[in-house]
């Protein structure tokens, strides 16, 4: 079975000032699957995932060389509209970061900034997004309460709903569970495996067990090099590179 590729990373090098982080990373991300980026702290996982929606542009001394193609289009080309790009490729961060607004407004936000005002339409989007984020049942009777009154796990699902509301194709998760307890974590993991039916998902995690559970493909990064990429079942049973083997068996990292 040949898998469609959504994002192609070709010879990616990145720098903070003079310091090189990513070193000639080349990788194809298959569509409608979960790809995990794993590796020890500081290996460049966040740097890499933030290239996919150009979040690194916000850092003044950041420099990128190489190509990242999204559906064949170079993301770093001059005429790319970053707002459009971030609508197509949404992101959920490590710490739940809902706005200090109501649950409803958090989810409606992305639609409102597109200038849409149709009340019924927005209601529909809010409900649909909360359902997809497996949160609707828990919040449907308190949509106008502050999002900050929710638990950490619920706040993270609000952030997921907020990302889903603008109908992205790809969702990036950078350590989405590291601030959550085991039960909230299990819920998010379940949600991720559910979402891959309709979205392409990339998850950064340094929790190897989590990478093993949720992903279909795993990339192992070490000191900015992509050491190995392949089906998760294979990476976790018969890794091809000695460094992957050592990382998984806890010899370093």
């Amino acid at each position: 079975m040949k898998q469609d590729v959504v994002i192609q990373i070709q010879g990616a090098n990145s720098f903070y000032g003079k310091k090189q982080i990513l070193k000639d990373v080349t990788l194809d991300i298959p569509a409608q699957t979960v790809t995990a980026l794993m590796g020890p702290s500081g290996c460049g996982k966040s740097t890499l995932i933030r290239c996919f929606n150009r979040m690194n542009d916000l850092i003044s001394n950041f420099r990128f060389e190489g190509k990242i193609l999204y559906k064949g289009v170079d993301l770093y080309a001059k005429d790319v509209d970053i707002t459009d790009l971030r609508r197509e490729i949404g992101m959920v961060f490590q710490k739940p970061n809902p706005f200090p607004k109501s649950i409803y407004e958090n989810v409606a936000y992305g639609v409102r900034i597109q200038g849409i005002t149709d009340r019924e339409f927005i209601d529909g989007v809010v409900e649909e997004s909360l359902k997809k984020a497996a949160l609707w049942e828990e919040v449907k009777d308190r949509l106008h309460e502050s999002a900050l009154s929710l638990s950490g796990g619920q706040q993270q699902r609000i952030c997921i709903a907020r990302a889903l509301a603008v109908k992205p194709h790809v969702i990036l998760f950078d350590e989405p569970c590291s601030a959550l307890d085991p039960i909230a974590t299990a819920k998010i993991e379940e949600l991720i495996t559910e979402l891959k039916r309709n979205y392409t998902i990339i998850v950064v995690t340094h929790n190897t067990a989590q990478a093993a559970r949720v992903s279909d493909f795993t990339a192992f990064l070490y000191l900015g090099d992509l050491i190995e990429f392949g089906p998760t079942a294979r990476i976790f049973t018969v890794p091809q590179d000695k460094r992957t083997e050592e990382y998984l068996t806890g010899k370093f990292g």
Partner: protein
Amino acid sequence: MLTEKMAELKHRLIEYATLVEGMINKSIKGLLEKDENLLEDVIEREEPKANNYDREIDETCTALIAQFEPMAKDLRTVVTILKMNKDLERMADHAVNISESSLFLIARPLVKPLDDVRSMAKTASMMLKDSIDAFVHENVALARDVCNRDDFVDTVGEKILDDMAGFIREKRDGVRRSLHVMRIAHNLERVADISTNICEEVIYIVEGKDIKHHKDEEREAEHGPAI
């Protein structure tokens, strides 16, 4: 996540067991109906298929342990599936052995009527089928029932051995044929034994209780002393 993977894995195991059960039935049908095609089918087409299942299930179990760290009953189930996989591979080999001996026998006059072999085969292949059913449905009662049929197969096996010994004593020209009949009986006995082992595993998964090494007391407690 794990639940679905386990269901898939069980499903593959059932397919594999169905293949092996078919191989055993065919190897005996080929003998009784003197049908060379059936026997060659077992050896040439089905045995390689069995090997593929064996490899695939092995890999799936290993990946599942690595990826999902199953615990408690899930872990017992995966470990048992690994063992059953090995068991099925053995039984497929037994079907091949039976087919080989059958090929030898059908080209020659009968040394004795094959009614014993037929009934032994029927019981053994049913035991295999039921052992897998017992596993899939976690049916402990069925598992215990299968264990109890093992004695019948052993008894018929003994009888075939006696018959053949008598035959060899009387007629010196049928030694090779007699040995092949005995080989078939022996292989059927192994199928029954392995099915019994599977059922013991089933009891282990469901009850977490190992009965392998105090089988006799267990059976007596359940069904009265063995005759």
